[in-house]
């Protein structure tokens, strides 16, 4: 398992490829991330790197327990903290306070990007699951956007688990797998990823090496 990057989604745009095709890209400000803590099997029961991103400029925005944690590592307070599980021998490559930069990725690499999707609130079945609703005419009464029947009668005598119904939509962790890195810019800490990534603009995303690609 390798370390990834925490980033901030800046927005989407379109650039042109070599043979003139338009490529939709998402621009992500990724890193520089700082190693805040190293967790080891002896001490914590597992091996990981705790990584911070997005330096907090105002000291009063960091509460005291957190501020102490950063002070212990001797790094500037970071807005976002995350852990990456890592092999113990790989862990030695990183020191506390070390920076992880965008050069982790190269153009042509495949990555998995996770983020918190845009929240849609409590949504009905038409919006949340793409149900068709009911016909708008022919005597339909007060059930235009309903999902219809939710099950049979005596058998099975209960609503099946996992039945698609209305409920909270969005604002949950989503990972999009195997997205291609189009461009990496070291001087501006930018990664340009082909396609869309979860979350709103200025939302935090995590970029890792793709699990399903070699």
């Amino acid at each position, binding site marked *: 398992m390798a370390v990834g990057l925490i980033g901030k989604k*800046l927005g989407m*745009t*379109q*650039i*042109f490829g070599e043979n*003139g095709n*338009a490529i939709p890209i998402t*621009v992500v400000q990724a890193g520089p991330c700082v190693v805040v803590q190293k967790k080891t099997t002896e001490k914590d029961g597992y091996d990981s790197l705790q990584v911070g991103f997005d330096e907090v400029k105002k000291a009063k925005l960091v509460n005291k327990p957190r501020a102490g944690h950063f002070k212990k590592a001797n790094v500037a307070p970071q807005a976002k903290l995350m852990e990456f599980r890592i092999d113990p021998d790989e862990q030695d490559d990183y020191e506390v306070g070390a920076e992880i930069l965008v050069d982790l990725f190269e153009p042509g690499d495949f990555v998995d990007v996770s983020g918190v999707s845009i929240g849609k609130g409590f949504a009905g079945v038409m919006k949340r699951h793409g149900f068709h609703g009911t016909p708008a005419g022919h005597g339909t009464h007060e059930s235009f956007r309903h999902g219809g029947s939710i099950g049979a009668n005596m058998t099975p005598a209960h609503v099946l688990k996992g039945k698609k119904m209305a409920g909270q939509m969005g604002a949950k962790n989503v990972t999009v797998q195997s997205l291609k890195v189009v461009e990496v810019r070291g001087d501006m800490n*930018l990664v340009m990823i082909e396609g869309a990534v979860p979350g709103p603009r200025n939302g935090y995303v995590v970029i890792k090496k793709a699990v399903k690609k070699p």
Partner: protein
Amino acid sequence: MNEIVDLIEKEHMRLDLPEVDIGDSVKVYSKIYEGDKERIQFFEGVVIRKRAGNTRAMFTVRKVSYGVGVEKSFPKHSPLIDRIEVLSKAKIRRAKLYYLRNLRGKAARLKEKRF
């Protein structure tokens, strides 16, 4: 729009092409790749629509070919556009010239702008 995204878009914009306006008669020379061969094809007509937005900008050219109306949309900053010739400009009173679709022959002419 984010400033950095704006900056990246500006890098990919083509500033060597002439500005086309609505109502212009233009000749757009675009590169066509067939296998490994490249040739240049032109499309001549009237610009009836423009869409803004840095690298995402588009414009649509309309012509009547053998009595059939043909429209082609080009990404304004596409590297496939070889060059654009602006043949004439027209005096127009609308931002989108969709009404030309309903007109035929002499009625579909635009009044030329004189300088």
